[in-house]
C-alpha cells in the first residue's frame, strides 16, 4: 500500500515537475499581469467610465491574448526547452484556466449589462467602492490560490497574497482601487520579465548538433 502510494506520488511529482518546467518562462505571469493592468489603466484613464464596460476586457482579452501567448510559447519556449504535449490532466488544467477566465469575464459582462439596464450599476458600484475591497481581495486570493493549486505554480499564491494585502490595505488607508490594480499588474509583469530573462539565459537556443541527432532518429 505504501509502495503503491509512493510510486503514484513519484509519478505525480514527475508530472508536476514537467508541467512546472513548461511554465518557468514567465509568459503566463506577463499574460496575467497585462490582464490586471488593463483593468487598472481603464479605470485610471477613465476610458471605461461606464461600469459595465469594465467587463468587456475579461471577455475579449483571452480571445486576443491566447493566440499571442501561444505564438510566444512557440517562438521563445519551445525552441529552448523543446516541445511537449500534455495528455489528459495537464492539457485539461491549462484549458480550464483559459475557459475559466473566458466564462468569468462573459458572466460578469452579462450580469453587469443587466445591472446597467436596470439602473443598478451605480448602486453596485457604490457598494463595491465602499465595502467591496475586502471581498475583492479575498476573491483575488481565492482565485489565485485555485489556479496555483490547479497548475502547480506556487508563485501564483504569492500574487494572490499580494492582492489580498493591497486590497485589505486599500480598505483601511483609502488606497484607490485603480492604483491597487496597477500595482498588482506591474508587479506580476515585472516578475514575469525577470523569469523570462532568467529562462532565456538558462536555456540558450540549442546549436545544430542536437537537431542533427534528432534527425537521425
Amino acid at each position: 500500500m505504501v509502495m503503491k502510494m509512493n510510486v503514484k506520488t513519484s509519478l505525480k511529482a514527475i508530472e508536476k515537475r514537467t508541467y512546472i518546467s513548461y511554465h518557468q518562462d514567465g509568459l503566463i505571469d506577463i499574460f496575467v499581469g497585462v490582464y490586471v493592468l488593463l483593468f487598472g489603466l481603464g479605470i485610471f484613464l477613465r476610458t471605461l467610465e461606464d461600469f459595465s464596460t469594465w467587463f468587456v476586457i475579461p471577455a475579449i482579452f483571452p480571445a486576443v491574448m491566447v493566440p499571442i501567448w501561444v505564438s510566444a510559447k512557440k517562438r521563445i519556449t519551445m525552441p529552448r526547452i523543446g516541445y511537449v504535449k500534455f495528455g489528459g490532466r495537464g492539457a485539461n488544467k491549462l484549458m480550464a484556466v483559459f475557459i475559466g477566465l473566458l466564462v468569468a469575464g462573459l458572466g460578469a459582462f452579462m450580469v453587469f449589462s443587466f445591472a446597467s439596464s436596470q439602473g443598478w450599476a451605480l448602486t453596485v458600484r457604490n457598494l463595491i467602492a465602499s465595502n467591496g475591497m475586502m471581498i475583492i481581495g479575498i476573491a483575488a486570493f481565492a482565485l489565485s490560490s485555485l489556479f496555483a493549486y490547479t497548475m502547480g505554480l506556487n508563485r501564483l499564491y504569492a500574487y494572490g497574497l499580494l492582492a489580498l494585502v493591497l486590497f485589505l490595505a486599500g480598505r483601511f488607508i483609502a488606497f484607490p482601487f485603480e492604483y491597487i490594480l496597477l500595482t498588482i499588474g506591474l508587479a506580476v509583469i515585472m516578475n514575469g520579465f525577470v523569469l523570462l530573462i532568467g529562462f532565456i539565459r538558462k536555456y540558450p537556443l540549442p546549436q545544430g548538433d542536437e537537431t542533427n541527432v534528432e534527425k537521425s532518429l
Partner: protein
Amino acid sequence: MSKNPSNLKNIDRLIHEPTRLMIMTQLYVVESADFLFLQNQLQLTPGNLSAHLSKLEEAGYVEIVKEFIERKPHTALKLTKKGRNSFKEYQQNLKQIFSDLPK
C-alpha cells in the same frame, strides 16, 4: 504471489536500466515530447539519449512520430501501447518484489 526471488526474472531489464527508466517515466506522464525536451528534462547528452531511444524503439516501446508543426518538420516521441503496458507491468512487478521482502 510466491515469496520467491525468482520473481526478479519478471523484471523487464530493458526498462530497468536507469537511463531508460527515466525516459520511460518521463514519456509515461506526457502524451508526447520531442528530443530536446527529453534531453533538458533528463539532463542527458544527445548521443546518450539517442542510443537509449533507439533501443526502446527497437523493442516497440517508443514510437517516433514525424510530423509538421506550422509547416516545419518535427519529431515527437511517445510511448506505444506496448510501451505503456510494459511500464505498468514493470511497476507492478517491482512493487510485488518489494512487498514480498521480509520486514
